[in-house]
């Protein structure tokens, strides 16, 4: 699993994510986003279902758009079904799309503390690239 740090951005929150490959960056970014929204993740939420999540090329045509589409997909599942991605196995990731197996737990407002409402993943200053040492790095800003 990769690592991430947050950086300040006036009213919003920035994420600086590092991973060994694009798949690792996507999995780490998913964890980072839900860390902003929920307190005490990941221990409190038990995995209920494991399903396939796909991002198709018609949704995205470069690595940055793939990252945004992937995170928006997870936010959508959280808002509509209270699903929290707990175990993320990105099987395939390229600038054309993503295929992942995701173990989702269910958010329970009576039990789980919350932090920030992430409204959207923005395109501002969005950067996803391979670094000279071969690992991958992404910078993105969440509108909260």
């Amino acid at each position: 699993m990769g690592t991430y740090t947050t950086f300040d951005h006036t009213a919003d929150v920035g994420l600086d994510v590092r991973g060994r490959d694009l798949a690792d960056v996507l999995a780490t970014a998913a964890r980072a986003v839900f860390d902003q929204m929920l307190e005490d993740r990941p221990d409190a939420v038990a995995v209920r279902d494991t399903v396939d999540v796909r991002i198709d090329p018609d949704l995205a045509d470069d690595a940055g758009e793939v990252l945004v589409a992937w995170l928006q997909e997870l936010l959508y599942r959280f808002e509509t079904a209270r699903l929290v991605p707990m175990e993320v196995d990105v099987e395939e990731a390229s600038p054309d799309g993503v295929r992942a197996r995701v173990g989702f737990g269910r958010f329970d407002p009576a039990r789980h503390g919350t932090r920030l409402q992430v409204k959207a993943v923005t395109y501002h200053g969005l950067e996803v690239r391979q670094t000279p040492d071969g690992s991958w790095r992404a910078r993105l800003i969440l509108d909260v």
Partner: protein
Amino acid sequence: MSPGKAFDGPLEPAGECRWRIPKSYKPGMRVDGIIYADAHLADQIRGDNAPEQVANVAMLPGIVRASLAMPDIHWGYGFPIGGVAAMDPADGGVVSPGGVGYDINCGVRLLRSDLTREDVQPRIDDLVARIFHAVPCGVGIGGHRDYSRSELARLLREGAAYVVRHGQGWDDDLDRTEARGCLDGADPDAVSDRAMERGRGQVGSLGAGNHFLEVQVVDRVYDAQAADAFGTPEGAVTFMIHCGSRGFGHQVCDDFLKVMRKAAAKYDIQLPDKQLCCAPVESDEGQRYLAAMRAAANYAWANRQAIMHLVREAVGNVFGRSAERLGLDLVYDVCHNIAKMEEHETPAGRRRLCVHRKGATRALAAGHPETPAVYRALGQPVIIPGDMGRYSFLLVGEPRAMEETFGSVCHGAGRAMSRGEARRHVRGEEVRRRLADKGIVVMARSSAGLAEEYSDAYKDVADVVDVVEKAGLARKVCRLRPLGVIKG
């Protein structure tokens, strides 16, 4: 372009509380930029790169008169927060989702009452707790029920009237809501399935972040005649609701940022920043965005109406009297993130313009036909929320706003500190204690969220409204001090 770096371009004095970025500053600017601020705020504004964004907006096709910014301006995505830009469709004018923002029709609703501070103070804990439990709030928390898709489609067309028709409000609430809580031309078919799914379960919920619900008392009156007409004399207790279109609006914005990026290329619109992506108002993309954005605006008005209904019930229960008998009348509901087609005088005559207000509030002076009949002799109430430790303001529009800013003023305090910085300064429990010392009761689902919203993280909203008043755009009616705060 980032928010961190200071603006080193020209800010020329242009009259009382006005600063000009001349269109000669950058090639491609079609009009000047005008920022409303005093010398102190102008210094702060220079500190982030928002004036550069004002200049960028001045490059957009069809922009009329000037790219305008209010004293609470701060850096935003593409367009600055606190920006006003009016585009003439007959001159190739564009509409841009970035000029509205993610939270479409984020706005404020103010409810007055016959209750006084003396009635409320002894029961404030109970009152805040009852409202907190009645109004769903917080991350991941939706409304009390899921709407079917056909119900939601009707709500998107009808706005606040839909929930009033279903028993959540009074008929005259609509008279006291901007645009009567409904923009014509909303089309649920222009909205994605995803937005519909996100919207179904969130009607009547506050959300989190900077959204809030406050119990307040009028602690200072500046214009007694207007305060009496608005039902907010000194000592009166009011309730303020600040929220928007929830996940529905966020999804509409996100969907159309993708559409507009392609459209900008298709129509060969030169953009200094990709986040200004846009399409001509008259194009298919522009019309579809407006149809979806209006649906989101109507969603937000229905949402605030539904929340107000829950507040009326909760307050009625605490005091054992009906909301009618407690005089829980709506003062006004006004939006601060929107694009609307409005008629305005321009140097080229009277025109129908697409007015973007992103973190700016509509402010109509006395006599304007869109001012509610009950307030027409005075002007439209303008509600400016501040931070939870200080105060908010009620203003009324003045004629100069229509002459200069397309009938627009500021929308709030604006952040002085990032969220991370705020969290490092203070913890949620400390905020709770400091507010308690000031006699303010707070209930919040998230302690970290509370820390990020504490007072010192915001500019003093009094400085912002003073500029608006000095510039002659609106005048102060009264100040509203929080007694109780509810946050997500």
